[in-house]
């Protein structure tokens, strides 16, 4: 526990990822110095070489687990962290690199690298919660910096973060955006996708592509019927759920309903 005499210690950790979610903290240009004033940034390699060894009050974890070494490292991070919050689709659902879970990773390595035998990688990309207990999961590819500040503030106040689990559709209504699917027949994952982005894509005249992952209790089978009526074929329906949150269970199962027969069936759920 943080004693009253010292500021809580924040650590930011990276696993397989693009760095974008931890960059969100540095993108809080108006708030960064205030955050740094309220917390001791004890480990944040993207931002500082200064580091404090020992235990951390809050660890933000970016990225998914794709190597045996990282599977060990996350256990050490957990042991040293009072609260552990995953930030983003990689840490929460395995990320875009989780597409290997539907394929043969040796074939992937051979397609990209001249010497695939040098590649040490696991066959799967898995979320942090499959390896250690997680206190809170923040969604998004990338996360919303507004929601990141909410998580950090909630932690400092000792309360649970407010990040509604309703759909992007609710955010469109709140924003006053005309429904792109109803009005224009544009395919949209909004009805099954977790809120948090502020319904960005429909405001830019395109359908949501699901980068915040599934909302609570989604009904993707019903949405797929509508998408098929808009002209999507089986291949497209398989792919539309299979991007940055492809391994979130609800998206994985729905993509497999439309996917190829010869690929591995759901063996992770």
């Amino acid at each position, binding site marked *: 526990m943080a004693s009253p005499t010292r500021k809580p210690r924040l650590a930011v950790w*990276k696993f*397989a*990822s*693009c*760095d*974008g*979610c*931890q*960059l*969100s903290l540095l*993108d809080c*240009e*108006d708030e*960064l*110095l205030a955050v*740094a004033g309220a917390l001791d*940034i004890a480990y*944040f*390699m*993207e*931002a*500082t*070489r*200064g580091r404090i060894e020992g235990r951390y009050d809050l660890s933000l974890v970016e990225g998914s687990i*794709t*190597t045996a070494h*990282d599977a060990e490292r996350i256990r050490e991070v957990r042991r040293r962290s009072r609260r552990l919050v995953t930030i983003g689709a990689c840490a929460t659902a395995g990320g*875009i*690199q989780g*597409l*290997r879970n539907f*394929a043969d990773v040796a*074939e*992937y*390595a051979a*397609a*990209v*690298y*001249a*010497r695939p035998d*040098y*590649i*040490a*990688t696991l066959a799967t*990309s898995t979320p942090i919660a499959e390896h250690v207990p997680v206190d809170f999961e923040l969604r998004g*590819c*990338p996360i919303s910096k507004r929601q990141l500040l909410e998580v950090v503030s909630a932690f400092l106040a000792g309360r649970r973060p407010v990040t509604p689990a309703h759909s992007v559709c609710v955010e469109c209504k709140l924003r006053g955006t005309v429904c792109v699917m109803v009005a224009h027949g544009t395919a949209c994952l909004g009805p099954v996708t977790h809120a948090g*982005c502020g319904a*960005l*894509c429909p*405001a*830019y*005249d*395109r359908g949501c*592509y699901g*980068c915040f992952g599934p909302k609570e209790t989604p009904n993707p089978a019903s949405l797929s019927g509508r998408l098929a009526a808009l002209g999507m074929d089986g291949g*497209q329906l398989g*792919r539309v759920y299979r*991007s*940055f949150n492809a391994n979130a269970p609800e998206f994985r199962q729905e993509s497999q309903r439309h996917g190829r027969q010869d690929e591995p069936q759901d063996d992770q759920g």
Partner: protein
Amino acid sequence: MAGKTSRKTIRVDYLARVEGEGALEVVVRDGRVQSAALSIFEPPRFFEAFLRGRAFGEVPDITARICGICPVAYQMSSVHALERALGVTVEGPLRALRRLLYCGEWIESHTLHAYLLHAPDFLGYAGAIDMAGDHGEIVKRGLQLKKVGNEILTLVGGREIHPINVRVGGFYRVPRRRELAPLAERLKWAREAALETVRWVAGFDFPEAERDYLFVALRHPGEYPFNEGRIVSGRGLDIEAADWENHFEEIHVARSTALQARLKSGESYLVGPLARYALNADRLSPLAREAATEAGLGAVCRNPYRSIVVRAVEVLYACDEALRIIESYEEPDAPAVPVEPRAGSGCAATEAPRGLLWHRYRLAEDGSVAEARIVPPTSQNQAAIEEDLVAHIQGCLELPDEALRERCELTVRNYDPCISCATHFLKLTMDRG
């Protein structure tokens, strides 16, 4: 005892203030730097493998995720390569908006690097937050300048990280002139702040270190390069992006497992701000050119530590160019040109903040990706970074270990290496023989 003095290994296990995670190892034998190895333990994510089978329209959303710091670069190289494969050309206001978007990324990424990642090295701080204790106003100016870059990305791209508005053929939605007006006001402030930034970083104390680099960058007939141009070098190379594979290759270096891009003649080369400036200084705006001269850059800058000055000049240019684009912007009739799927191949290179980013795609008849190849700037610079370490560390061997380690890190940070992008990097195993 003799062994101790004759042999020394300097290790930096986690490089701080680079995007992504890497380490470096320098081996010294009998007072000579024998080797320097930058090792990347960023786990592979296999983008080129899982891009296969995706529809061409899905590609820019996916390639953005290679790098959270420079997603626009990945989107731009992929849409231009795909448009070549599909026989489409994007011109006029849509082309100008793409340039504006790239200005936003350069301002955001370069300012992040100059203020938050690189300047603390020169001023003796562990990071920008410590630096803010003594230089609060300067750090705030950097954050606000960075924010203006992000405001361009947010308005034109939809959001700062992984913009949602880029598509093959153009955009999903284009801004109205009146939406851009407040941005122009912010950019006028940013241009002043960028000018102050050039003066600030020009006053740093730079190590004397010049190397005769082989610079490689895009060159365009009328513009400082973002999205278009021929690939040229300081020694006479002048090719189309489609010819990259005829002149460059990614090879295995002896005793290492990393792929590094080199010229087929075996030479290492340098991409990024120093290369762009050396090959395109005459294409800068008058204001940026003047600031470069005032900062003492000359026609060519071969000191990698001064790359921070060149980045600051490029931020100034990007502010100036963004203002020019906004002032002359005419709303296009449609947000995108029509694109029909077809079989084909296309290559494109664009100038990511860190340097040349090359993509090639082969499409099947239905417009799905049959093959993809991506060569990021950091894999092209890796050989030059290691040669720099060997050259520059030799003169600093008398420094105590900790100071030497910091000098090694500073040398690597000159390149603003983006390790998450480096899809071809492998974990490197040193033979310490």
